[in-house]
C-alpha cells in the first residue's frame, strides 16, 4: 500500500534531531522521509509512469495529522516546539501532509476547508494519503 510520500521538510526535521541543536524545529512530530516503494501485489503495471503530485513544492511541514496516517513518528515527540514556522509563505497549489497547529475547519457549501491563520487548505485524498492543498481564500 502506498503509505508514504516524500516531503521536503522531513530532511530539516532529521537534521534537527540529528544534531540535537536548539534550532527551530518545524514540529516535534514531523515525519521522517519515507520511500514509497513496497508492493502489495505482484501484478502491478509498473510501466505506467504515474505522477499524482500536482505540485511537489512542499516546504510547509507542520504536523497536526488528524489521522496520524502517514508519518513515521520519531521517538522524540517531546522535543521543543518553538514556532509555527513559515505558514504565511505557503504557495497556492502546494500540498502538505500535515496542517499547522490551531486550524479551524470551515464548511462552505459542500466543500470542507481548513483555515490556518490566513492560509486556507483543502483536504483531499491522494492515493490513500490525506493531503492538504493550499488554496486561495474561498471567502
Amino acid at each position, binding site marked *: *500500500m*502506498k*503509505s*508514504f510520500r516524500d516531503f521536503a521538510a*522531513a*530532511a530539516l526535521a*532529521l537534521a534537527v534531531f540529528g544534531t540535537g541543536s536548539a534550532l527551530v524545529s518545524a514540529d516535534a512530530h514531523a515525519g*521522517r*522521509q*519515507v*520511500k514509497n*516503494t*513496497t*508492493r*502489495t*501485489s*505482484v*501484478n*502491478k*503495471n*509498473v510501466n*505506467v*509512469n*504515474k*505522477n*499524482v*503530485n*500536482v505540485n511537489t513544492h512542499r516546504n510547509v511541514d507542520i504536523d497536526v495529522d*488528524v*489521522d*496520524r*496516517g*502517514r*508519518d*513515521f513518528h520519531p521517538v522524540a515527540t517531546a522535543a521543543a516546539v518553538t514556532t509555527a514556522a513559515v505558514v504565511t509563505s505557503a504557495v497556492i497549489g502546494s500540498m502538505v501532509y500535515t496542517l499547522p497547529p490551531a486550524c479551524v*475547519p470551515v*464548511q462552505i457549501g*459542500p466543500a*470542507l476547508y481548513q483555515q490556518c491563520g490566513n492560509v486556507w487548505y*483543502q*483536504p*483531499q*485524498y*491522494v*492515493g*490513500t494519503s*490525506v*493531503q492538504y492543498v493550499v488554496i486561495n481564500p474561498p471567502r
Partner: protein
Amino acid sequence: MLMIRSIQTTAAAAALAFLVAAPPAFAQPAPERDPKAMEALSAMGKYLRSLKAFTLRGDTAIDEVLDNGQKIQFGGTVDYRVQQPDRLRLDVRNERRWRDFYYDGRTLTQYGPRAKYYAVVGAPATIAELVQAADQKYDIEIPLADLFLWGTDKSGLDDIKSASFIGPAQIGGKDCDHFAFRQEGVDWQIWIQQGKQPLPCKMVITTLSEPSQPQYSAVLSWNVAPKFDKSTFTFVPPKDAKQIPAAQVQPAAKK
C-alpha cells in the same frame, strides 16, 4: 589458538566438502519455470475464480524504507468481504493508517475512520477492473490485488521468469505447498493449500526496485461460504464524517 585452529580445520573441511559435493548440485540449474509451480498457480487461479463469495482475513507486515535505507516494519490486517463480480468491502488496518473501501459496482468509496474523511469516485463494473483502475487512476494500490486477477487473462503468469517448488509447509494449521517465483521488479512466494481447495495460505512479495528490498507478507485465512448483510457494501457516512475530493493521477511529464 586452539580454537582458531579448530575453526580453520572446520572451515577447511567444510570447503572440501563443498568442493566435493557442491559442483554437481549447482552445475545443474533448476528448470527456469518448474511446471509443477506453474500448474499450481493456474489451479489456484481457477479455484479462486469459481468462488462466488468469500471473506478473507490477512495478517500483514510491510516494510517501509526510510530515506537512509533503513527498513521499518508495520504490522496490520486486511479484511476482505467479496461477492463476485461487483461487490467488495475492504478494511485495511495497520499501525499507521486505517482505511475502509466500499465498492458496489458503480462507485468506490474510501473512508478513513479516524480522520473521518471520505471520498467517492466512479468505478468500473467488476472487481477485477476496479483493482487496476484504482491503482492507475487514483494511485490506490489494493493490497493483494492479484487475488482478483489470477485465473483471468490478466493473471500475469507469462511475466514469470522463474518458478520453483520449495516444499510442503503448515500455515495456520493447514497443509500448504510453498512456491517461489521471480519476475521483473519482484521476487514472490506463495503457499497454496493442498487438496481440493487450492487457496493461497500466505504470500510474501519482495520489491526489488529498492536496494534494501522491502517485503510485504500476508498470512491468509479464508471463509468461502460467507453471508453478508445488505449494508456490507454500502457506505453510510457517520454524522461527523466529511466528504473530500480524491486526486486523479496526472500523466507524468515526459522526460
